[in-house]
């Protein structure tokens, strides 16, 4: 009986081994648990490891997903996916985990997935700002906070750090807004009594808003003006980083342990050919560069980005595709600029989710902003069945007296209630996998050996890029940071007399050299090149085609 039960449990554990719930937000501990399950359920294909520690000493986890039976994971073109670099922008983590689950659970059954997993490597860093995620779920937090890490920071410039943070006064697990009745206040309620707007010139005010829930800890008359932390991790990468702590980018790039861990990880995996860094919100497919206009960006790369971005709208019809700097706003020192400007890797940030509004809400136009708020509230009332907004309720504040507390919950405007995660997970996963599908993939397409005379051979090799992306972006090539593809010949008993590229039709070797290694430059998407080695000798001869971002291929000849 016990044995039977144990057997049943084993079967249960095996099938339940790695189950992802697409209607749930995962806390840090739950994420770690899930990764352990994935590792246990797929020990051949999944490696789970840490790449560093956060400021508060929490592990930052990474996962490698690859099929080692089809080749060394370091020698396959790789897709890098991260999420939650802003502490409050949590659902990128769920998309990364869903992608992991999607690939693993469909491997062997779904032809497309099987081929991707066999020919690519996938790296995940599901939570970058691990301390931020922890505080987002445990509180005190709002939809917008904590964004940064927890490096002590003097927000209000009074020479003190982190001395006035948020407090959940009514203990409901949410940091709401505070308002107090005041006919000399600047605000009044409008079309919806839950939304405050500014009074018109000829109207009396009704309310004074005290911003977020909390007390004035330092007696300066302001509420929550210097909460815990920090630096904006997505402004702390080199390339486009601005001095003077612009946008809270820190004193120098990669000064923070979180960003340094991510950057070192990316640098130590030069096979990464695509980067997706998930954020929220706004329903956008954003591409690099984010710190400059497209001036100086090679046309070929823009074409590549546009081609992917426009295809993205097939997966995500409600998303807008744009160049970050020109379309959204300047962002200096981002992951995607490190990826593209620094490493020459095609890099995207998807801004997951938004509550749809019919109006442009950016800028300082209050009327538009309030109109958009009303629309969002209407949407939340109907679609989220009233779950996202806490209606105003009376509260006795120790410093302000009788006030009201109310407003958006943290799971609301930027992260939908968990049952709505479905809508985000699949299309974003498929779009991101589409990028991996385009990756370069070099191949020794054919080899012809001609014996010229005894123990003198001409070996003609045709190499191809079977993929659609070049083995290096034009930017990387122009800036001299691309590592050229190369082919090498090795054999114990051979000597290279001459080697080089040859003319496709005449077979003429235009600039012969006598090196074992021929540099091919960087192969374009769907490009073919022919080259030849003139060798003397005999025996086993090995040809190795190496492309850092386009994979490896090898073959052995017998001369």
């Amino acid at each position, binding site marked *: 009986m016990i044995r039977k039960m144990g057997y049943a449990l084993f079967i249960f554990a095996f099938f339940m081994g790695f189950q992802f719930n697409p209607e749930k937000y995962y806390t840090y501990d739950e994420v770690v648990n899930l990764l352990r399950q994935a590792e246990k359920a797929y020990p051949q294909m999944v490696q789970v490891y840490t790449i560093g520690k956060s400021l508060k000493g929490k592990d930052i986890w990474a996962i490698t997903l690859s099929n080692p039976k089809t080749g060394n994971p370091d020698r396959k073109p790789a897709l890098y996916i991260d999420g939650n670099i802003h502490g409050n922008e949590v659902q990128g983590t769920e998309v990364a985990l869903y992608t992991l689950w999607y690939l693993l659970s469909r491997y062997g059954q779904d032809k497309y997935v099987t081929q991707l997993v066999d020919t690519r490597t996938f790296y995940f860093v599901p939570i970058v700002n691990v301390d931020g995620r922890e505080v987002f779920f445990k509180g005190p937090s709002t939809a*917008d906070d904590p964004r940064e890490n927890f490096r002590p920071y003097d927000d209000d410039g009074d020479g003190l750090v982190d001395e006035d943070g948020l407090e959940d006064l009514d203990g409901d697990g949410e940091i709401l807004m505070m308002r107090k009745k005041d006919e000399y206040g600047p605000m009044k309620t409008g079309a919806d009594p839950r939304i405050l707007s500014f009074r018109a010139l000829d109207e009396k005010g009704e309310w004074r808003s005290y911003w977020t829930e909390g007390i004035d800890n330092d007696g300066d008359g302001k509420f929550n003006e210097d909460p815990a932390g920090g630096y904006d991790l997505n402004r702390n990468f*080199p390339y486009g980083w601005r*001095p*003077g702590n612009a946008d809270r980018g820190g004193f120098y*790039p990669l000064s923070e342990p979180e960003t340094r861990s991510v950057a070192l990880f990316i640098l130590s995996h030069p096979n990464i050919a695509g980067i997706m860094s998930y954020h929220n919100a706004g329903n956008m497919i954003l591409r690099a560069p984010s710190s400059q206009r497209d001036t100086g960006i090679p046309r070929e790369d823009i074409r590549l980005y546009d081609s992917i971005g426009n295809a993205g709208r097939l997966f995500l019809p409600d998303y807008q595709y744009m160049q970050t700097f020109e379309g959204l706003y300047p962002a200096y020192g981002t992951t995607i600029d490190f990826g593209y400007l620094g490493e020459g890797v095609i890099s995207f940030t998807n801004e997951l989710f938004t509550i749809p509004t019919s109006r442009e809400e950016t800028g300082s136009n*209050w009327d538009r902003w309030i109109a958009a708020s009303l629309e969002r509230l209407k949407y939340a009332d109907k679609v989220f069945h009233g779950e996202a907004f806490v209606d105003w309720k009376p509260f006795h504040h120790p410093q302000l007296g009788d006030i009201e507390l109310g*407003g958006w919950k943290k799971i609301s405007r930027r992260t939908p209630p968990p049952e709505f995660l479905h809508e985000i997970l699949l299309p974003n996963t498929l779009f991101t996998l589409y990028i991996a599908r385009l990756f370069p993939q070099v191949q020794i397409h054919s080899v012809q050996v001609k014996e010229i005379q005894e123990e003198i051979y001409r070996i003609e090799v045709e190499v191809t890029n079977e993929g659609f992306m070049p083995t290096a972006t034009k930017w990387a090539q122009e800036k*001299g940071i691309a*590592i050229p593809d190369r082919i090498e010949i090795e054999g114990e008993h051979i000597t290279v007399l001459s080697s080089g590229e040859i003319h496709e039709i005449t077979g003429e070797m235009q600039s012969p050299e006598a090196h074992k290694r021929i540099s091919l430059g960087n192969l374009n998407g769907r490009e073919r090149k022919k080259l030849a080695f003139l060798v003397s000798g005999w025996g086993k001869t090995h040809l190795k085609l190496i492309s850092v971002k386009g994979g490896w291929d090898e073959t052995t000849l017998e001369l």
Partner: protein
Amino acid sequence: MKAIAKNQRGRYFGARILAILSMFAGVILPEEVSQTLQKLARDKPDLTRVISLGKSFQEKDLWLVSITEYEKHRSEDRPGIFLLAGLRGNDAESVRLALSFAQSLIQAYPSDEKVKELLSTRTLYILPLLNPDGAEAGSAYTRRPFDEDRDGTADEDPGDEKDNDDDGKTDEDDTGGVDLALNFPAGWKPELLKGHNGPFPVSEPESKALADFLVEHPNILLFINLYGTGNAFLYPYSKRTTGKIEPEDARIYEEMAKPAVEKWKAKKATLSDDFAPESEKENSLLDWVYQNLGALAVDVGIKDVPLEEILPFLRDISFFTPLLQVTSITVLPVAKNIYRIEAKIQNKGKMATLTKSAEGNPPKQPANGFGEEYENRGGQNPRRPVAVWLNLPSPAALLAGPQRKLFPALHPEEEQSITWIVEAPPGTVISLQIQSAKGGSITYPISVSQTAERKSAGGEKE
């Protein structure tokens, strides 16, 4: 025990002999630096602290000595001057000078009045050798493997005049290879990945240890780098940064340079100027310090400059840093047990409590500040205000006046006055607190009594 002691002594004498030999060979050995600093710490424990900022790639300590009157105040409560040398491992001359400067301060204290004043009002941080690995190898560069030619492998073609990797080039990827002066973020761009700049800004253990120490010591207002390849007095910007520095800051640099120009005909110029030696033209470390830390950064060339000229020069430019003083305290009884207290404070240095470069960048307006966003999500230079307040012992109470008065910066000679109305029993001792990350911290006792009192403060007190 004995055996160990003997062994250590043997190592000590060994190091001495090596040091003497190295003097003639024009190199400096890391042991010489650590021995000299340890000796300083032993001789004058009340004036010095020797710490290691971290380890180099080859696990050598990065020694730093800080010098101030430790028995009278905390080192971070005084404006700081940071002196760096040995940024390039083979710049032995600068390392020796930094050591001599530290020794000269210790020896002249307390008999030399200027030195006494310097150490009672400021803290000096001296890091004589940032690149010990390079020093040992006789190279300007670090030793951590680095892919200078960006071909995907590091250090595959060392400097032996052979083409070790069969790529048609010789010695294009030598052992190690980062020039720490170039390893800072100013103007960082992908083209810098080839050459000696490093894989990313502040990538090396040596540069990171230095950067973190500077960030964690906001009291540092003057950063001096010694270099041995010329004798020009240089200041930002280098070729890595476009644009010009703030005119206010430029004036201070010019005034600082005056003795160098007069005494040893030093050229004063920006790092990017034609006069600057090639080694300094892209010195991004100085740009970084100036742009990010609210400190002035100068590059002092010491080639062929006599010791008796350069040592007083280094001492004197240290006095440019700000010096907050209480210039007067007036206590006026206005009613029974009620006093009007007026304090005047002044900056007696030649620099503001913040460089012009670090002012500005006002906080951004919220994109849409209605209730749902934070008031200030924009970034700015970390602000370093001068805060002034009274510590009132119970039952004394503040009736009027600021709880905590903030001045964004105090400029040279600028005087500010703050007034409070305080209720206190006669004989109460109130302490006036002045705290500035950059200008130092002062505690000043004020005792109140029913007779009117005007008191001029001679200087700061503890």
